[in-house]
């Protein structure tokens, strides 16, 4: 919101500089984010009146005689929108227009031109501050503009504009008079006196003429507690006067015609939306009611709107004429031929208007003001102000006002002194509290231990005791309160066990050389398809996504972790070892969120430095990682064969713990990034299974005996089966069997392979003898023969 410092000063004279005022307003909760200084760029542009204008023979140019008050100048112009009597901006010889071009004497085909007539753009005025027709041709000024006046005095171009950003509860500051009231509060505080708002918006002393027999009926009383109607007869719709035009300019309102301009002015200056109906197009009684299903109304913007039961309507005997507080109907709108108007000034409930405007997706200046909450006592004053202005601007004759009111008397708000002290943790004296409320113009009754406060009717934010305590803080200053440490019984704080577990798991993964990534939880179908995810039925869909790419909650970490892989490869990062622990989502008849671990590997672990040491990420590196994770959590893990769309069919395993599938890992499938390995593990399952307690396991003090064996068997037999054949014997003394060689080829027959193991035996009771170990080896030989049809070759 842009607020004119010039208009503030005009409304409430003060000696603060713009930056002082900005700082003070900000400290009270009306944030001024910046100040725009605006200074006119043109020089020596004055107002003049066209005394005579005529086409120069055989040209498209006009010769005009301009009266500038001091002299009469002959000026040639190509503009076609001029006629005798127009008042226009004239750039005198020696002047400069807004873009810096100098204007002097010129000669067009033998005719002298002493200056230039100016368009809006040549004055540097923003397009949205003039009416549509004013954007073209020479700028025609209001007919009551004096001549011979510097243009910067005609439209108040030079100004300082506050860029104000308001909190939702500052409904009392969404319009100029509201900001002016806060300036009055600032002055009252600085001068240590009660605020006096009566100087802002003095009510005109007007006489009501004429009858007003328009009947008003409110059927939705809680949505419309107050309605005022007034007829203004015999108006003349035209451009607004210079005086009003200047105010519109400062309020950043685009001029339309004098009637609309007046209603807009009252809304932007006083915060009260008004609506002017063409009285002659109304039919009978005014009724405020909710819409019925099936009703329609074409609004001012020419759109036919289907109404719903959230819409509060203004209707007459023939049907809807306006969506209350949002937008009027086209049928009853004020046009250039309107003679009599019906002026509405109403108080609609914020919630009703919010529902109505949102149900239509139609948000207007009026609906925004109502939504925030307007001054519930200002409707009659606004009507009076508008009527007076319409009398001046449009020569209208106002009638008396008719009102229907269901306004409830607002309750006084109680505030106890000891409650103030208790909430703030610091004593604020009763006299200070009263002083602060005086600064804000609150009325109150002192009851000894408490105050009963009446806040002004525009202060919609004062409803409970705590609201008043906030005002104490506001007036005393947020930073004038002491800092105190918490008191009370000291207890120790802690994380939840699950959080502790996650941190422990993350530490473990980092120690294993993985970098933790943090990806977005929102994904699109193309990304999911790229990692071959196809279970679209269980996807959790957003009703209002920002884009197609962020339409669903991620059902797996694979998609976004894969995206990280690709992005890093694209920027030239070659070695990638990453993990993420995050929520994944799915729905059945309700929503589920689970925590998942995703690990992605690509490239190598060792950075090359010329030493030819290589540690490439591959299937077994990842398998080792997975085994390490489970070992670190003391969870027994098994692997078995299964296929997953995203993983290579021959380099993949399912991870099983506690008899259930808990994840999988493997190489990424064809069409995905090459030489990349991914693991996915359910973290909630890990948490359930992990054993926090670690127990010491004793080891033998006798030296171990090592034996190497080679097993020749069918090449298709999985190594795991061999290990199972060895360990299945449950030889207590067998401590380990390390596979140190896999061999295929001559002299072995085709389809045979040799697996070489180093076996380590030891006993708790003694040093094992050669014969004892031989016995074990014989047992193993038998088992190998029986279980995997292998042949043992001892070394």
């Amino acid at each position: 919101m842009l607020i004119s410092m010039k208009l503030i000063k005009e409304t409430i004279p003060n000696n603060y500089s713009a930056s002082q005022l900005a700082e003070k307003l900000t400290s009270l909760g009306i944030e001024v984010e910046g100040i725009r200084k605006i200074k006119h760029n043109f020089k020596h542009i004055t107002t003049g009146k066209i005394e005579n204008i005529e086409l120069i023979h055989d040209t498209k140019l006009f010769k005009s005689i301009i009266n500038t008050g001091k002299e009469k100048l002959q000026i040639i112009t190509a503009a076609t929108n001029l006629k005798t009597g127009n008042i226009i901006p004239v750039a005198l010889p020696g002047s400069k227009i807004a873009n810096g071009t100098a204007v002097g004497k010129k000669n067009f085909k033998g005719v002298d031109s002493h200056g230039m007539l100016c368009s809006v753009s040549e004055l540097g005025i923003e397009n949205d501050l003039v009416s549509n027709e004013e954007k073209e041709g020479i700028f025609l000024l209001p007919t009551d503009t004096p001549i011979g006046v510097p243009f910067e005095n005609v439209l108040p171009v030079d100004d300082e504009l506050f860029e104000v950003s308001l909190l939702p509860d500052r409904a009392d500051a969404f319009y100029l008079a509201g900001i002016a009231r806060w300036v009055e509060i600032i002055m009252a505080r600085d001068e240590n006196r009660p605020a006096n708002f009566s100087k802002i918006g003095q009510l005109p002393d007007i006489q009501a003429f004429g009858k007003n027999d328009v009947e008003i009926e409110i059927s939705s009383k809680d949505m419309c507690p107050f309605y005022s109607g007034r007829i203004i007869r015999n108006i003349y719709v035209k451009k607004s006067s210079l005086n009003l035009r200047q105010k519109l300019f400062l309020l950043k309102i685009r001029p339309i015609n004098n009637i609309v301009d007046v209603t807009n002015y009252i809304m932007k200056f006083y915060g009260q939306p008004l609506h002017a109906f063409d009285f002659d197009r109304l039919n009978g009684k005014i009724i405020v009611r909710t819409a019925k299903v099936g009703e329609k109304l074409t609004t001012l913007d020419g759109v036919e709107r289907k109404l719903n039961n959230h819409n509060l309507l203004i209707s007459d005997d023939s049907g809807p004429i306006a969506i209350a507080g949002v937008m009027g109907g086209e049928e009853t709108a004020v046009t250039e031929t309107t003679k009599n108007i019906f002026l509405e000034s109403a108080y609609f409930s914020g919630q009703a208007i919010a529902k109505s405007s949102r149900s239509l997706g139609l948000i207007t200046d009026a609906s925004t003001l109502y939504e925030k909450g307007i001054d519930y006592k200002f409707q009659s004053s606004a009507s009076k102000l508008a009527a007076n202005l319409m009398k001046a601007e449009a020569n209208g004759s106002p009638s008396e006002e008719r009102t229907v009111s269901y306004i409830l008397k607002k309750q006084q708000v109680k505030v106890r002194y000891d409650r103030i002290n208790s909430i703030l943790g610091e004593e604020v004296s009763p006299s200070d509290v009263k002083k602060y409320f005086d600064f804000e113009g609150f009325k109150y009754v002192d009851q000894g231990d408490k105050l009963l406060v009446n806040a002004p009717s525009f202060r919609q934010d004062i409803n409970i005791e705590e609201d008043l305590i906030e005002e104490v803080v506001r007036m005393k200053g947020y930073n004038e309160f002491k800092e105190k440490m918490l008191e009370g019984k000291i207890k120790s704080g802690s994380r939840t066990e699950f959080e502790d577990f996650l941190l422990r798991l993350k530490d473990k993964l980092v120690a294993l050389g993985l970098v933790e990534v943090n990806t977005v939880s929102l994904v699109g179908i193309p990304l999911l398809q790229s990692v071959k995810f196809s279970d679209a039925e269980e996807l959790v869909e957003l009703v209002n996504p920002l884009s197609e790419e962020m339409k669903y909650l991620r059902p797996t970490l694979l998609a976004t972790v894969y995206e990280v892989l690709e992005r890093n490869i694209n920027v030239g990062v070659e070695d990638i070892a990453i993990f993420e622990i995050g929520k994944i989502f799915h729905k059945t008849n309700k929503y589920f969120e689970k925590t998942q671990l995703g690990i992605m590997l690509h490239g190598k672990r060792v950075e090359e430095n010329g030493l030819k040491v290589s540690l490439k990420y591959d299937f077994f590196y990842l398998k080792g990682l997975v085994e390490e994770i489970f070992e670190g959590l003391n969870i027994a893990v098994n692997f078995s064969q299964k296929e997953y769309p995203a993983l290579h069919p021959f380099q993949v395993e399912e991870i099983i713990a506690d008899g259930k599938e808990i994840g999988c890992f493997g190489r990424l499938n064809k069409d995905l990034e090459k030489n990349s390995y991914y693991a996915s593990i359910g973290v909630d399952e890990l948490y359930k299974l992990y054993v926090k307690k670690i127990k010491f396991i004793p080891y033998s003090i006798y030296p171990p005996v090592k034996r190497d064996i080679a097993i020749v068997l069918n090449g298709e037999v999985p190594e795991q089966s061999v290990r199972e054949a060895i360990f299945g014997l449950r030889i207590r003394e067998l401590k380990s069997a390390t596979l140190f060689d896999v061999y295929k080829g001559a002299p072995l027959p085709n389809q045979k392979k040799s697996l070489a193991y180093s076996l380590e035996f030891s006993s708790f009771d003694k040093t094992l003898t050669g014969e004892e170990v031989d016995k074990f080896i014989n047992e193993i030989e038998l088992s190998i023969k029986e279980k995997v049809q292998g042949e043992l070759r001892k070394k």
Partner: protein
Amino acid sequence: MQEIEKIKKRFEDEILTVMASEIKELEIKYLGRKGMIAVFFQEIKNVPEGKKRKFGQDVNELKAYIEEIIKARLEEIKSQENLKSLEKDKIDVTMTGLRLSNGAPNIITQTIREVEDIFVSMGFDVMTGPEIESDYYNFEALNIPEYHPARDMQDTFYLAQKMLLRTQTSPIQIRTMETYKPPIRMIATGRCFRRDAADSSHFPIFHQIEGLVVDKKVSFANLKGTLSEFAKRMFGKNSRIRFSPSYFPFVEPGAETAISCVMCGGKGCPVCKYSGWLEMGGSGMVHPNVLRNVSIEPEEYQGFAFGWGIERIAMVKYEIPDIRMFYQNDLRFLRQFK
């Protein structure tokens, strides 16, 4: 006498030029049974009586001198031979070390952990809650009914059935107060979602740290004291906090909290846009309606709450210019925070 000096000189010349293999020879030549020193000893008897003692002394000194030099020289030769035998192991030690690429916890995890550790040490428990929330927990229970203007402050992602993605960690306040009776000291951290277009300071996903204290006499002064202590421990002991008016429906009075600029200490610089302050988040005294919604009697208990952005804290602390970097996951970014 001159003889002794001469021999010493001669030895000194010879020891410098002699090869390693000839040392032994030199030793025999001077110290051997028939060596030069032995010759001197034999001559003692020929020296006049008055000078005999002095002569003997000088010869002994010369002998000790030669022995010492030869011993030193032999040791030197030995160590040179040792070195020679190790030369085959010579490597270019100036090459860079062999590096395993190491892991790193995410900057967000690190920041959350640091924040949690500070509050845990002040007696706060860490709570969590779901990312898919109901309208009730995310808004209504927090005194933000439907059509409340404050809903516009947080543009929300909706799911079906009046469910949504939490826009703040504040619903965890409600869940905590529903479960535990006061006194309560809790913080909650987690991922939040807002329907904001991404720019350098906004992203549709971000993390928050939420704090809530409810007890009989918890005050605005305690809120200031707690956040001030946190700021000092997180950003340095000279860090200060500033409160300014703000509005959040679940607190009253409500405040925006800023810390003194970590770059300039409050003097004003481009980072703080010459204000001296960096805005960190909202705070205030728990609104009585919120307490009533969880059946806590506002006349008996009162409390404070605050919510700060984790990314914002990290951006300030590590001078990260753009919030989007947290979600780009460029390893050149992530590996900087080990």
